[in-house]
């Protein structure tokens, strides 16, 4: 009853609070820069897959950007409280998809992650990401009164988180890890006891180590990053050679170095021929090469703006706990993706295939980012003065 009343007040206030223009601009600039960079970087893929028809891939990317912006508009106009009611269904649906993709999915770059629907490939993990965060926020709100209780509050949250994270993590450890960090953050904000969170984190760390040991290529990537032979099962000579992960990290660093202060100029990247999946995993390196140190700093600035607005403006002034939790977790996910992607490109983190949100060429992740920002904007519109 109370919530319903609050809801009507919000609806009345909606007209007065404008949506957050900073975040909107960040999104628009990122999509524009992304389109330019992807156009430059996609040539190699286009040559292999479509006989050099780069424009075809550009059109696909623009289609995705348009879809993402459409999603952004739709979700920014949909009250997030309404979404909250569908959170459980959405999570169950995407978990089902995650199971299905393991059976019918398309193998892509060694991992089975996607369905093909016409020109779009759908990655259920991107959907599950949004759904899980949504549902966890709802749970946290519902269990605030007894949040300190492990059995009554923590167990249900833990249940859904573990199922989703493990299902995603089977194929894509880095996405699962990032999602887990976001969940831990929102749980922390949601006042779950630190002891419980620590336990959760340790459990997952143990799981992650298990996965690492069970999969030699994965371990190899880590070794390449560390530069040492850590695991007996891997062949580190091969790992550290020029053609593998260490090679990719080095090529990305070369891209930044070649870019200098102001870059080679739009479309003049050379390193795109040497980096694997430059349009996705290494788009930040391409931007660093074409637009230089200044370009990469500006891009990081955009993500920093998103982070500051997300946390300090939207989450902090959110009208209710649900808004706070949602804003916190979506801001965390997008910012974390951005920083981890950048960290990989500059060689600070081991090589993972994470896209740069709103910039990289990749269907569902782009749309998922649109959805998340849309919800964020909707929250910003409901801010109490």
């Amino acid at each position, binding site marked *: 009853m109370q919530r319903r009343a609050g809801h009507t007040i919000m609806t009345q206030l909606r007209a007065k609070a404008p949506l957050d223009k900073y975040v909107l601009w960040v999104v628009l600039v990122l999509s524009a820069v992304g389109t330019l960079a992807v156009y430059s970087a996609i040539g*190699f893929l286009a040559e292999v897959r479509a006989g050099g028809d780069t424009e075809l891939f550009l059109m696909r990317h623009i289609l995705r950007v348009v879809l993402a912006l459409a999603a952004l508009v739709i979700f920014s106009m949909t009250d997030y409280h309404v979404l909250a009611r569908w959170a459980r269904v959405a999570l169950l649906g995407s978990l089902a998809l995650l199971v299905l993709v393991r059976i019918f999915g398309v193998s892509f770059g060694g991992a089975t992650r996607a369905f093909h629907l016409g020109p779009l490939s759908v990655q259920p993990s991107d959907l599950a990401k949004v759904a899980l965060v949504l549902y966890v926020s709802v749970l946290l709100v519902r269990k605030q009164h007894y949040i300190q209780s492990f059995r009554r509050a923590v167990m249900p949250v833990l249940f859904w988180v573990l199922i989703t994270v493990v299902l995603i993590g089977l194929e894509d450890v880095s996405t699962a890890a990032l999602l887990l960090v976001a969940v831990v*953050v929102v749980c*922390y*904000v949601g006042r779950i006891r630190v002891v419980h969170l620590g336990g959760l984190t340790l459990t997952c760390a143990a799981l992650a180590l298990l996965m690492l040991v069970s999969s030699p290529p994965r371990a190899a990537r880590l070794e390449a990053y560390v530069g040492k032979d850590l695991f007996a099962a891997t062949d580190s000579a091969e790992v550290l050679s020029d053609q593998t992960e260490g090679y990719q990290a*080095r090529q990305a*660093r*070369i*891209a*930044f*170095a*070649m870019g*200098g*202060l102001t870059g080679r100029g739009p479309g003049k990247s*050379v*390193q795109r*021929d*040497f980096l694997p999946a430059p349009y996705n995993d290494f788009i930040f390196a391409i931007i*660093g090469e074409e637009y230089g*140190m200044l370009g*990469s*700093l500006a891009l*990081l600035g955009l*993500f*920093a703006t998103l*982070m500051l607005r997300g*946390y*300090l403006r939207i*989450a*902090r002034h959110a009208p209710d706990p649900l808004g706070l939790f949602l804003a*916190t977790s979506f801001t*965390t996910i997008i*910012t*974390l993706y951005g*920083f981890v992607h*950048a*960290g990989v490109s*500059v*060689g*600070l983190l081991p090589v993972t295939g994470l896209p740069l949100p709103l910039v990289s060429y990749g269907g569902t992740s782009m749309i998922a980012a649109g959805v998340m920002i849309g919800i964020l904007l909707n929250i910003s519109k409901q801010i109490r003065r």
Partner: protein
Amino acid sequence: MYVVLTLLALMLLLIVGQLAWIHLVDGEELRNAGLRQVRSQIVLAAERGAIVDQAGRALVVNTPRYDLALDPMFPGFEERRADYMAQLAIITGWRPSSIEERVKRRSSPQYVRLGEITPAQHAAVDTTDVPGLIVVESFTRQYNYGTTAAHLLGHVDRDGVGQAGLELEYDGFLQGIPGRRALLRDRRGYRRVDAAGIVVEPIDGQTIVLTIDLIRQTILEEELARGVQEARARRGSAIAVDPRTGAILAMANIPSFDPNNPLGTPPHTWRNTAITDRLEPGSSFKLVGATAAIDLGRTSMDRIIDTGNGTLNIFGHVMHDVHAHGEIPFRDVITMSSNVGMAKTAQRLSQGELYSYARSFGFGQKTWIDLPGEVSGLLKKTTRWSKITLTSMAIGYEVDVTPLQLLMAYAALANGGLLRQPYVVAERRDMTGRVLWRAADAPARQDSVRRVMDEATARALLPAFTGVVGRGTAKRAQVRGLAIAGKTGTARKVIAGRYGGGYRATFVGFYPAENPQVAMIVVMDEPRTSIYGGVVSAPVFKRVAERWIGTLPQVAEQLIAGDPELDLADSAPAAQTVRLGASAPVQDTQTMLMPDLTGLSARDARQVLRRRGLSVRLDGHGAVIRQYPAPGDSSKQEIVLTLQR
């Protein structure tokens, strides 16, 4: 929430720090590595220069060669591999299985050389739709006249790098400077055209114009071969030089080899023995002692010398003449080649005097002819002379010389006492025929042109040497109406430091005696019919001199002036009936004139030329705008058409 914010901000800081580190600390190294891995270039081959004789006849040219290569990784090849393999087999005539075998055994993933193809097959390759085919165009060296002048020309290796002779000596000029085109390379090694890349056009090699003449060279080789055969000698060498300039007129050795296929004959046939072999000159070396004695005024040509019964005991070593001559004037000591008379005259000289004259004639040092492998012979310093060295050397022992050194010494006598530096390259020209360098204008080595004796000495000595041919040991060198001066030489060969059974027989001389145009030496190694230069070498000299008259107008004029009744019909036709080298396609190419091909399409032009049995190199696409050789000129082995759309 602030904890999270702080952690994320920290991460951002780390990223920015790492960026700065990449730029400021690792930047240089990373940039260099980046540049290294993308840079690539194609070498644009320069065409090796031709070698032509003094009349412009092409002795060495390049013929285009096409090699077919394949990139089996080229997109689209794998899909219809069997089909393409069958097409390749039809075009080339190779068995599909052997092509497959080559592809399978390739060492590079993206390149395999399949083999050489003909120009016709090249045209077929151009029209086929098999992807990944690469035609590598290069040149092979063709020696138009086979063994003719082989030792002068030398040969090249598989890569077209000079290995011997002029090909080696002038390699730097013949090679030209290859051009290059800068390309970009991606991580799979595929090359992409770099629009902004530098293109450096190749500079083709220079054409080398020789002092020798094909006709004269051919005559010399024919007569030397005949002489070697008649004397049943092991080998023979002959050189002719213009004594006034040092220009080599011809140079030959028997046995010879075919530079088109040097490996077809054993390595000893490759040696240009005229400059690489040392011999004891024997009597022909008496020139040195005689010059010293006359030049220093120790004797005169008319001074009577007692040669006694033809023996002379010098510190226990007994010296013999072939015949006893008794009391004869000094001129006859030379004419009759008296060892005793020469030794007695030499005793009037000091060791240093004989040594310095020998040195001055060029013995013991290179002549600096522009050919590789020349040796300097051996002229012992006086400190290492024994008591008998003075007299031994005066008659041509205890000294090692090359045939060329000996020839140049007599050329100095012919030239009024002035020694010249011998050379075989008269000019270097660029591809368009512009003269870049001319031997006549170039300063010779300072130390290789010098006065060996007074002109008066040369004049005084001359009658003694004309006497050698007129009434002395070399009567067989006589040519009717032509005054020839010369000297025979016969010496036992030194093998491993001891005199063996073999002899070397030499005749060296020049003509016309009063106004010498030609100096020539003929050396026979281990002749078996006779050991005397006057018997085995002089006839070769005579026959060459006779047959050369038609090619030397100035000699012919003097001949007519000196003997009006002489009928030139005997000698002149001989020059014209020279058979030019066994493999010579000379009739075809020398007599055929180039048609005007301007405006024709590549296909038509190629057809016109193919009908005449000529192959052609095409530059560019479209219609012919320029041709080499020009219309009306005699066609060459190498025809270049420049095309433009």
